[in-house]
């Protein structure tokens, strides 16, 4: 997250592409543009926060098709659609599929810049969250299976005594395993630990 974010622009019209690049550059954004869906999809995923400004009407695959294709490839890049005319059903479909914004050409510069800022922020947050989950998973994986058992029981609200009875060991042993697990998980408190476990339970997500 130290790297600069990138805005990808896909539009078949060269002057539109260059004018968008020009506009976005005025707020210091790095822009990479493509003239078709194919060329964009052939690109390797960026390791930095990014978003996609996508024309709905494209030769070959349409903007909506690209959105679907990205979702199928589990590439979670925020998308801002640009369209020549306000096609409500299409915009609804795009928004439902997770688009950040659906803007009508010619677009107001502030609307576009706001949308891009929101999109990049979303992507950054997502990347951070994914990073945190990945860390937590690494820490959790470093626990012994008994430690994993103990903290799972802890966050479900069981007392040391109960856990010891359940696992058939001494309460003192549970206490040792608990403090070791909290240490490994870098949890400041039981509440902290509970939040960590909760995050781990949400479906694991792959970084793009």
């Amino acid at each position, binding site marked *: 997250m130290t790297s600069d974010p990138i805005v990808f622009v896909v539009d078949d019209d060269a002057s539109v592409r260059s*004018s968008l690049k020009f506009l976005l*550059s005025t707020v210091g954004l790095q822009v990479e543009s493509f003239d078709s869906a194919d060329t964009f999809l052939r690109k390797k995923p960026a390791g930095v926060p990014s978003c996609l400004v996508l024309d709905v009407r494209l030769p*070959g695959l349409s903007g909506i098709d690209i959105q679907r294709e990205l979702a199928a490839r589990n590439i979670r890049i925020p998308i801002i659609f640009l369209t*020549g*005319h306000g*096609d409500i059903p299409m915009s609804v479909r795009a928004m439902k599929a997770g688009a950040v914004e659906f803007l009508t*050409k010619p677009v107001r510069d502030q609307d576009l810049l706001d949308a891009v800022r929101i999109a990049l922020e979303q992507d950054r947050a997502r990347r951070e969250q994914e990073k945190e989950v990945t860390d937590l998973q690494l820490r959790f994986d470093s626990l012994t299976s008994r430690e994993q058992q103990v903290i799972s029981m802890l966050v479900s609200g069981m007392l040391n005594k109960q856990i010891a009875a359940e696992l058939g060991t001494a309460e003192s042993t549970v206490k040792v395993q608990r403090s070791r697990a909290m240490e490994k998980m870098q949890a400041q408190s039981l509440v902290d630990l509970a939040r960590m476990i909760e995050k781990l339970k949400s479906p694991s997500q792959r970084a793009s």
Partner: protein
Amino acid sequence: MNVNKLETRLQEGDGLLQAFFENSPNLIFVKDRQSRYLYANKQFKNAFHISGEIRGKTDDELFSAEQSAAFLAVDRQVLQTGLLMKFEDVVLYEDGVHTRIVQKFPLFNAEGEIYAIGGAVTDITDRKREESALRYSEENYRLVVETAPDAVISIDEGGAILFANPAAVRIFGYDPTELIGKPLTVLMPEFLRKLHEEGFSRYLATGQRHINWQGTELTALRKNGQEFPVEISFGELSRDGHKVFTGFIRDISERKQVEEMRAAHARQIAVRADVSMAFGKEESLKTILGECSEAIVRHLDAAFARIWTLNDDGTMLDLQASAGMYTHLDGSHSHIPMGQFKIGMIAQERKPHLTNDVLNDPRISDRAWAEKEGMASFAGYPLSVGDRTIGVLAMFSRKPVTPETTETLASGADLIAQGIERKHAEDRLRDSERSLRQLTETIPQMLWSAEVDGAIDYCNQRVLDYTGLSAEQVRGAGWMKSVHPDDIGKMEQAWKAAVSTGMPFQYEFRGRRAADNAYRWCISSALPLRNQEGRVIKWFGTVVDLHDWKEALQALQMTQTELARVSRVTTMGELAASIAHEVNQPLTAVTNNSSACLRLLAAGNLQAEVLRRALEEIVADGNRASAVVARIRGFIKKEPAEKNELDINEVIQEVLVLAGRELVENRVLIECQLTKALPLVLADRVQLQQVLLNLIMNGVEAMIAVKDQPRSLWVESRVDGSGDILVAVRDTGTGLSSEAHRVFTPFFTTKANGMGMGLSISRSLVENHGGRLWATPNSPNGAVFSFTLPVSSGSPA
């Protein structure tokens, strides 16, 4: 002796003589030479009613002149000849005419002189009468016997023939004299001889008769050995203490034959009557044929009789009836294949099979059975109608089948065949009538019929259900109750016109439906049924509720109008989208560039070089937008539908521009072969654009699936053979396949999101311009859509 002496003796003397004379049944008299009566006995006097003294009287005094002359003539003869005169005469007595034998004789004296005439008269009137009768009778008998057609034979007590009349000779075949003296038994067949002899001798001994003497039927034997039936009557009479028997023998061969024929005829009539009666009953065919076979058994003395009918496909004979010793219908004879066994062969050959020698007949399969049951004969007849076989009638009998029986069977078979055929026809007719009636009652259609005068005489249940009227109410002109008051008058008029002219009737009217008490549009149609002379004898009609259909039709028409409009709007909408995109692209670039400049300017960071480049782009994009607007101006401006003289190539160019983005997006290569300086057409520009756009877009869509080769769309314009303008749009897409003929049908579509209206509307638009639009396959793949437009009359070409 002289007269005196005689007189004395007669009067007084000889008492004995007188006693004789007086008691003789004869008339006795004596006359003198002068024919004066000297004596007459009592009989004489009684016969002529003479009382008192007769002596000295003459015939003149006693009889008529005529008679007395006759008497005197005889007297004279006696006197002259001296001979006895004997003659018959006829004399009128008091009680009538008498025939007499008169004897007059001379009485001689000692000198040999005639001194008196004696007379004796025997009245033979009675004897004469008897004789005559007897002679007549004998003659008669002789005549009868001689000429009788019957044999008359007399025998003596020894049984030998005494007499045989000519008929006997003829009947028995002997010579006239041959029979006399022969024993009667020669005229009998062997088996009767002993019987006769025993019976005859028993009778002679005891008087006990062993047969009836009056009209006994027996068998006789001709000389040639032929036996024949006779009827014998005989009697006996005694002559000279001997008995003579006389028999009358009648040859009854012919009568027997006639009787037999009559009986056969009666049997035939009986069989025919029973068969006819059976077929007259309202029974199943099986029952009827059962009765027929029973009649055959009953009247023709059959052991059993059976009837098979041929099945529908003519392959199998099914046993329908069996009477007599077998009555079951199952078993091996239940189904006989056509052409097999004796029954199947009779059916196939359509010829009767008759045999009186079943044991040696090759067609009789089960001889052991026939022998055990004592079967003597078999008769089988095909049941035929015209040249078709419909079954077989067959019987077995323990007696020989006579020609009369076969005749009866043949006639019975005929009758049964006709009966079966008629029954089938009746059944078919009944079935067809029933199904027709069922049809009229169950068909979901309102049906009615009317008399010649137009009065309704029948309405099916549908009509009654619909109108809520009863069968009685609807009759005659009652149906009008269910017609809307505003329609009654005209409808009645139309109906009356149809009835009077015999023309088919059809009328749309509002009828009241009972179910919701609402008037609904209906159409009633009727056709007249005519007889052979062409005269109308009946009317048959229908009523159809058109209401829903009419409403649907209206709705459909509205929908089509709407669709046409919507389609136009949709096309326009798509065009608008396309135009918006075209214009928006440069506008977007202009806006973006301007906004960026403004931002940089606001940040005090706008470099001249950057600004110059941005402005250049803005100008370029501005020009681009205005070019787009210029291109579409014609399309937008001439939107109201009106026909103008147009250059079709201009229209094609405009549409290609409009479709340009679609073509580019789908990587479709356009190839134009537009003939320059074409004559103008008189057309609505927008409508032509719509047609062209539709054809081009169809071509593009048809080629989306094509991946492995270039997508090319040819657009061609030229003058065709008939001088019309022809425009063709040719693609290399998926083609028309087998559904080519349907592509112009409304709502037919091969596209997932298509409405199927494009080509349908396009065709009607072209046709509205007097042209044609059609599709043909393109080689090697794809389709060609072509349309023609007539050249404007004002066109210089």
